[in-house]
């Protein structure tokens, strides 16, 4: 018994010694600044990739990027629990947020397009037809010039930025009728790809060979058309801070908005840079012409 005690004591001492040694020899440089960004899952890959590049170039900083949804991002930035809140929407559009306390930093523009299952056989819809489809006034694709298939609506979850943008600028503020809801673009795409008669909407970067994108009033969903607002369904991606940013937060946001990121990562991830736009839009949807690039 006493021998066992001895061994136990020895192990404990060694463990404590190891711990102290490890603490003493820790890399002091990494005890530097760290910030956390949470929010929109759609924006997460961009911020994450930019964060990795930034910490690679600036040793001693750490940028922790998490998802959780736009609502979580905005409520946590409002609480001051994090340094950056990622959002797909203007803070003013989200209920329960005191937008005047938050500072908006636009880092990207995302275009959103309706997508349909390949067997639907529709490649163009007028705005009127799109509204009819999503409000349930037509229920079969042959009524809008497609195959004889019942229409299956797939929405994003209520409160999602993509849905809010689509309903505001695609459906001209009509509400979609209650239908299936999914909470991510990847799920929406795979469901539309496999369900005959399905229609939904995703960001341009999610369109691939498995689904058919739809032109609106014979305007194709292309980046060029977004920059001139000929394709109206687009929105900004925002990084929100509580008050003016300082320190690492400020440096990082400036880095994301710098050409180094705007011309590389933003484009690679399928976004447009706000610098490419020839128009500007405010929280109420009002459009002003700017020179643009």
């Amino acid at each position, binding site marked *: 018994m006493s021998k066992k005690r001895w061994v136990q004591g020895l192990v404990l001492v060694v463990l404590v010694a190891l711990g102290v040694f490890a603490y003493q020899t*820790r890399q002091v440089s990494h005890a530097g600044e760290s910030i956390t960004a949470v929010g929109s899952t759609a924006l997460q890959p961009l911020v994450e990739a930019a964060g990795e590049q930034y910490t690679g170039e600036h040793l001693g900083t750490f940028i922790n990027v998490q998802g959780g949804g736009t609502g979580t991002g905005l409520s946590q930035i409002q*609480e001051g629990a994090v340094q950056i809140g990622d959002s797909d929407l203007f803070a003013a559009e989200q209920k329960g947020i005191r937008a005047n306390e938050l500072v908006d930093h636009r880092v990207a523009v995302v275009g959103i397009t309706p997508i349909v299952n390949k067997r639907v056989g529709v490649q163009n819809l007028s705005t009127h037809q799109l509204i009819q489809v999503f409000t349930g006034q037509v229920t079969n694709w042959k009524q809008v010039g497609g195959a004889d298939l019942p229409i299956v609506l797939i929405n994003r979850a209520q409160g999602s930025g993509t849905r809010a943008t689509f309903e505001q600028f695609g459906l001209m503020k009509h509400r979609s009728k209650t239908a299936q809801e999914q909470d991510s*673009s990847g799920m929406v795409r795979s469901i539309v790809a496999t369900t005959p008669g399905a229609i939904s909407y995703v960001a341009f970067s999610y369109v691939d060979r498995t689904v058919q994108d739809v032109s609106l009033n014979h305007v194709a969903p292309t980046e060029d058309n977004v920059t001139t607002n000929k394709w109206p369904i687009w929105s900004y991606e925002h990084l929100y801070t509580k008050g003016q940013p300082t320190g690492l937060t400020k440096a990082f946001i400036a880095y994301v908005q710098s050409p180094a990121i705007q011309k590389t990562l933003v484009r690679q991830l*399928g976004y447009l840079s706000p610098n490419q736009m020839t128009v500007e839009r405010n929280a109420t949807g009002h459009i002003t012409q700017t020179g643009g690039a």
Partner: protein
Amino acid sequence: MNSKTQNKVAIGGLYGIAGFVVLILLALLGFILVSGVPQLSWHFLTAPGKAFLKGGGVGVQLFNSFYLLILAMLISFPIALGAAIYLYEYAKDNWLTTTIRTAIEILSSLPSVVVGLFGFLFFVVKLHLGFSILSGAFALTFFNLPLLTRSIEDSLRTISDVQREGGLALGLSRWETVSRVILPAAVPSILTGVILSAGRVFGEAAALIYTAGQSAPALNFADWNPFNISSPLNPMRPAETLAVHIWKINSEGIMPDAKAISSGSSAVLVIAILLFNFAARYLGKRLYKRLTSA
């Protein structure tokens, strides 16, 4: 129908049911492995992930999953064991005990996203633990405790009272009876419970999205100093696990090989659980032999 034919038919039916269950598993495993195994390579298992390019791996996520599982088990097992012992061996069978049992059972029906959000508001925000392995381990503990307590209590119940009476008759105290007689005898069935809950923990995603986080910063596997941020052992770093990774790339992944990574990861997860299972079973047998000297 006489009772003998009835017997034959019924037992045949039971064989059928058992066979069907095995068939379901084989189909599931086959589906996962056939689509996943071709994606596996040494590179895939060890390389860090890539956000939007081809050729990312799951090395970091794999390590995170195991580390988180071990931490969560280290925290939750002793608590669950103690609670189960008290509930079954000490507590009187009165309304209070019943209420506690009911409450524990109710807790296990909460969707794990609620536990995750609770963990987020409490550990991540209130206690300032941030998105970290530690927050994740606590959230998993919350999620795991009801299940584990329940299953350990059931294991204790399967040990017949004769053993308890025997221990007490030998002049052992209650605690000695429990720790020297009952627990060793219950080890195999406790172990089954632990494996079952470890499997659930290993595959859990929703509780971790808001606590351990969904980003996996690259790790330096040469640095085992737990105080360094890039050390694999640092419990304060954000850690995406394999299950969260599968969920994430399926929902918002834009890398061109998202599907391949997702099926590869599923296969890795299932194979890891398989190995884990066999190892635990082997250990359990050895432990049982040693503890009961049978």
